[in-house]
């Protein structure tokens, strides 16, 4: 039976215990869930355990978040497919008829791959920064790990990601590239994308509780970040120190991985994986520190 130091002390000092009701249910463990709250950071295990326990909440609210966008629209979820489809069509027209960076009809696939990554990344980050603050209604009444709130946005965006990845694969096949084994790279690319977005979301949403400028800072950074990522242009086009900067951008690795799976990536893209993974690890570590420290006191500032 788990008992902390204080509990043991109390049991020792109370010779006469007046615990009134005997409970005989089989399998019942009265102290199976003991938590002690202090001003110290939460034990990592308890955060992980609570997060795991909240998986159903995460899944339900994430699904709800996605479907509620379309709930009142008469075309419903069709919009979720129609909009990226339209985007792909517009790209096809613009980049095959008007703008030409690179010869070949694969340019549409080239740009669509980058945009698929970016619309998940940018779209999620711009909503998840305010997730904890916006979730105040529920969060101030009942406890669940606050990290669930930005994760809900991530789950919701993942539905769109699935749709746009399917679309990307379809466009790739239509444009005559054909099936090839490197397409399997889409899976690790999606995982990296989700991990990176999650890490940034966890940090930004926690900081936003204390610094309400974060949401605007995120929009500002995203505007610049879009052009600092090889989405509508190939890395090859750039040279010198700017190229190094591109390789340091953690999103570059993911975009290039998606390209490797479809039209073929810029040579030497594997380097950027290092910065991507480093970013994820560092940010996850920061997120862990922030959430362990502030998880139970966020509600004081909501």
């Amino acid at each position, binding site marked *: 039976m788990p008992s902390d130091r204080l509990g043991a002390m*109390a049991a020792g000092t109370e010779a006469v215990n007046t*615990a009134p009701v005997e409970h005989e249910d089989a399998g019942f463990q*009265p102290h199976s869930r003991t938590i*002690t*709250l202090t001003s110290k950071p939460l034990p990592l295990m308890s955060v992980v355990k609570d997060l795991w326990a909240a998986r159903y909440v995460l899944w339900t609210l994430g699904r709800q978040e996605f479907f509620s966008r379309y709930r009142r629209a008469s075309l419903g979820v069709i919009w979720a497919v129609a909009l990226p489809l339209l985007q792909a069509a517009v790209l096809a027209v613009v980049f095959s008829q008007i703008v030409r960076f690179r010869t070949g009809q694969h340019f549409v696939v080239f740009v669509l791959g980058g945009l698929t990554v970016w619309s998940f990344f940018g779209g999620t980050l711009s909503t998840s920064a305010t997730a904890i603050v916006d979730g105040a209604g529920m969060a101030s*009444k009942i*406890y669940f790990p606050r990290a669930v709130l930005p994760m809900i946005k991530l789950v919701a965006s993942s539905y769109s990601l699935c749709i746009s990845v399917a679309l990307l694969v379809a466009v790739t096949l239509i444009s005559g590239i054909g099936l090839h084994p490197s397409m399997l790279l889409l899976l690790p690319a999606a995982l990296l994308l989700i991990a990176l977005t999650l890490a940034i979301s966890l940090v930004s949403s926690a900081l936003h509780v204390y610094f309400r400028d974060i949401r605007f800072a995120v929009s500002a950074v995203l505007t610049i970040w879009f052009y600092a990522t090889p989405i509508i242009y190939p890395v090859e086009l750039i040279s010198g120190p700017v190229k190094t900067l591109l390789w340091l951008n953690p999103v570059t690795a993911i975009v290039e991985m998606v390209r490797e799976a479809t039209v073929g990536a810029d040579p030497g893209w594997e380097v950027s994986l290092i910065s991507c993974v480093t970013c994820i690890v560092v940010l996850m570590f920061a997120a862990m520190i922030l959430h362990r420290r502030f998880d139970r006191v966020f*509600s*004081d500032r909501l």
Partner: protein
Amino acid sequence: MAALPAIEIRDAGKRYVKYEDRPLLSRASLNLGARTTRRDLWAVRHINLEVNRGECLGVIGRNGAGKSTMLRMLAGVTAPSEGSVTLRGRIAPLVSVGVGFHPELTGRENIYVNGTILGLSRREIDAKFESILEFAEIGHFLDTPVKFYSSGMFVRLGFSVAVQAEPDILLVDEVLSVGDVAFQIKCFNRMMEIREKAGTTVLVVSHNLSAIRMMCDRAAVLSHGEMKFDGPTPDAISVYHDLLTEMHDPNDDLVEDTKPLEPDVMAVQSFDIRTVEGGLSSHFEAGEDVVFHVEVEALKDVDDPVFTIIINDATGRLVYKEPSISRASGHFAAGNMLSCDIRLTANLPTASYVAHLIVLKGSLTHRYSHARPAMFFVTGRVLVAGLADLHASFTTRTLATVSEQ
């Protein structure tokens, strides 16, 4: 091994920092000499409390005494700034009307979401689903988003999930006052039931002293963030009453009266509450006689002034009002002092009451003067609730033998 207490609070305190949100470019922040104003505020401090399994503890205190902060710490929504709060078992907090429902989700989805947050597995919720529905009485609104629910349905569903989850610790705030009486009784019975059967620890925060008295053997009194008392409920209520007297500012609530004032005719000099023996008192047992003693100075000659006694309960509800209109009080010459004793029997349930006294012209057209309100407290008979103690008598007898088995 002796069971450890379900709730254990050790020297806990919660400090809130009062920040002033100040945009970077405002004039004040451009003034670099000015320090950021950061004021610390201890909502509660040095709280020590142990609640054993199966116990029901009432928490009482005035607004701002720290009850909600304490409850928030127990609900795990916020961690203490110092000391520790230990909770052993599954907690179901019913901290306010919202009870942590997501407005966009349907009743069904919210049952699952709320249930999982309360620590149930999906399978457990499946098993309890029918009884949750039955208790909540939400009928065909099950698949409607809860934002369309009435406040009664909201609370019913919240309470239903919380009690059917069979928590080890149930925290109840004023929520229950939202439901109608029938539902309140149902909730009360259910709480007592899980307490007896499953050994659930119940912690009730309420201003409704009769509810506390009915449910809890033990109560804690909070005042200005400190634990003033922790012990048997009747004693706690009397400590709470004393606090109310200390802090009551008589100028706060003047008697509202539509009639225009004629202040230069009579002036109330004193108004107090006494026992039949004549000593000042503010505590009375149910059935005891209470004497309201008023002394008035006649500034002008006056005929048959009328004394009106008004008794409100702590929430401002009128309990009793009677003018002395039918009794001629006589002629009083200017410069005389007169007194009036109003004696009544405190056939009242446990509560605090506010007595007002108004002196009116005989024709009731004008108000001469009024006394500063005085408070008194009644320790009612156990289990009596409502506005008045009407002394019901219960007679039961066997009518006929129905069955021979």
